[in-house]
């Protein structure tokens, strides 16, 4: 199995899907001539031409809405947001048009499209460029949200998202583009709504998504030295959510933490906590804890930024607490 970077895996997914279906086109800022701000679309302009790989003006609302309109009449747009921070400008079209068109038209117009781009903080990019907005999208019925954490999942989920008949938000990790991993060649599809057990363990469940999968695995390694076997469950899809996988893990370990990069208030973890206590209450031996970004805008200063972000220590500490080992 070839080893690819996360970036290459996404590129491969785009390329394969555009070859497979000529209704698929990619649109966004810097995606064509510049080869993509993060080079995810490298080489696609040469391959498919400027009707299918389209540089846009800096008009997130405009090109997001344009793509929804194109999807209404059967095209399958892939919209790249340079980062999801900028997607907020397009939120009207994502929320009011893409998410609701099928419903408010009584089933007449589905929106088969993808909104994708990097989410989450990189390094010292400060408040406006360091946000993990997954919960904003997962909040709205009508949208599907996935957040791949590995190159293989990046390819498999993006391909599935492009083939899906509903609007799918694919939230990539800005700091993941360079990570390497084995990626199946060709037809590798990861179904939406299927979580993946990245590490098995009996003692505590670390449930997470996206980039935080790697932090969770590091924490699990640390815990192993303390004699604790942590399970790392990567949700991969935030909506649909693999509730059964979550419950199975919690039923096994009787304790869980949710690790996410975003803020705690009304975050993805908040939903998970609600779901777990609603459906696995009698299996819990401890409250479900969350490890999230500090509930503040992201500071610039390096030391403050580190304080604001989830880290291995905090994950380990939360695990100890639910294990009553603190």
């Amino acid at each position, binding site marked *: 199995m070839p080893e690819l970077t996360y970036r290459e895996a996404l590129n491969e997914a785009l390329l394969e899907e555009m070859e497979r279906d000529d209704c698929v086109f990619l649109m966004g800022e810097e995606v064509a001539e510049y080869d993509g701000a993060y080079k995810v679309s490298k080489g696609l302009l040469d391959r498919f031409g400027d009707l299918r790989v389209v540089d846009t003006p800096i008009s997130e609302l405009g090109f997001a809405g344009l793509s929804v309109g194109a999807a209404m009449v059967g095209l399958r747009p892939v919209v790249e947001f340079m980062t999801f921070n900028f997607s907020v400008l397009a939120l009207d079209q994502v929320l009011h048009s893409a998410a609701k068109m099928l419903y408010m038209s009584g089933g007449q117009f589905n929106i088969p499209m993808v909104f994708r781009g990097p989410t989450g903080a990189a390094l010292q990019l400060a408040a406006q460029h360091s946000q993990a907005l997954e919960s904003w999208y997962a909040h709205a019925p009508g949208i599907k949200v996935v957040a791949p954490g590995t190159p293989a999942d990046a390819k498999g989920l993006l391909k599935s998202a492009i083939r899906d008949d509903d609007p799918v938000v694919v939230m990539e990790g800005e700091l993941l583009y360079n990570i390497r991993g084995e990626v199946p060649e060709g037809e590798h599809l990861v179904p939406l709504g299927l979580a993946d057990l990245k590490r098995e363990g009996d003692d505590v469940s670390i449930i997470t998504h996206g980039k935080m999968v790697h932090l969770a695995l590091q924490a699990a390694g640390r815990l192993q030295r303390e004699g604790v076997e942590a399970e790392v469950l990567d949700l991969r899809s935030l909506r649909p959510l693999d509730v059964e996988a979550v419950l199975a893990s919690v039923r096994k370990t*009787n304790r869980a933490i949710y690790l996410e990069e975003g803020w705690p208030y009304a975050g993805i973890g908040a939903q998970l906590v609600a779901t777990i206590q609603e459906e696995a*209450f*009698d*299996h*819990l*031996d*401890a409250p479900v804890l969350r490890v999230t970004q500090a509930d503040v805008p992201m500071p610039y200063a390096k030391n403050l930024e580190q304080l604001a972000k989830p880290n291995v220590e905090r994950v380990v500490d939360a695990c100890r607490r639910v294990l*009553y*080992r603190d």
Partner: protein
Amino acid sequence: MATKVHMEALSPTMEEGQLVRWLKAEGDSIANGDIIAEIETDKATMELVARGEGILRKVLLGEGGTAPVGEVIAVIAGADEEIGELVGAAGDSPEPVADSPVSADGPKSARGPTTPGSPVASAPAEDPPTATVGEAAQVGAESEEAGLPDQGGERLKASPLARRLAEENGVDLRTVPGSGPGGRIVVRDVEAAKVGAGAAVPPATVGTTEAQPWHPGVPSEPGVDFEDLPLSQMRKTIAKRLVESLSPVPHFFLRITVDMTRTLAARKRVNALLEAQGDKVSINDFVLKSVAGALGRHPEANAQWMGDAVRRHYRVHLGVAVAVEDGLITPVIRDANQKGLAQISREIRELAGRGREKKLQPEEYTGSTFSVSNLGMFGIHEFTGVINPPEASILAVGAIEETPVAEDGQVVVRPLMKVTMSCDHRVIDGATGARFLQTLKEMLEEPAAILV
């Protein structure tokens, strides 16, 4: 659906009940909540309430008959429902006492301590889980919720999983010390309780036990009814050894002689004051009042053995032994140290009266923290009482006797009274008991002290 009517545990200590009379006859229709029978328990005559509806199809226990708790004594069912199997099976498998409504759900009254002699109370002595001492000590430093949070706390704190496991394994959570935050019982505690002592001590926290001081006898916050003091290794060893030597409660006895001259005089004056109201107090009332006052000053003597902890009570609930026709009942004067002499007097008269008529409700004869038994009126000079677990002592009060004593080189006659304190050595050491008795003696010899 047919409903089996069981002999229910209508008092906390009841093991069997006598059917006084049926208030419904076979063929009567029954609604949920109807009173269907009167049952005489070991303490009182209680009402048995229907827990289903339909027709009282079959009565299986005749009036005057007795049945153990849990036995099916009647069947309520639909008019045409087949009940042969139920009737046939009745008595084969009486349900365990633990399933009875009283004991299964735990004490519902928030401040109700465990009843003397109940299965719950005796459980710790048989199987003392000592596993989680270390953490209990840690938690105890934070709040009063440590140890056994149900007994007198607001509620029993246990994780959902711990509750489920306890239910599945028949572990009574009230006997399980919680090692989680705020005394929460978590699954490892239940597992430790299942396998017995020693299974789940978190090594990292054992050492904190030593750091836990015995508190001086005052509650840390107002509204704290008691606190559970964790057992030191020494105390655990003492407990274990003494149990082995003198099972189940390692008794020892302390006796002191009290000069009742001033109490007798005080009683005279008080009764003169009360005469206008047609009221009067007895010497025993003075004794009760003084015991309550002394316990208030010595909470270490107002304590109970909980198996894994010593529970030190800050409220004084005095059990007063009252002889009844066929035995003994111990009505409780709650917060006796807060009550005046006359009030104590009236209460005990009223409770004893109803006790003799077997009209006491369970909450009126359970929950005492210390008991007093007075056989003075029978001319008994001195005697020893038997401790009522989980209480740690009982005071036996003898008669006042004119006794010649040497005083300043002279022989004088004094009205002397001997009191004997039976102590559970696991809880009370000799000096502890002695200090309490000394205070009691001082109070009775200078009754003005009860005003202080």
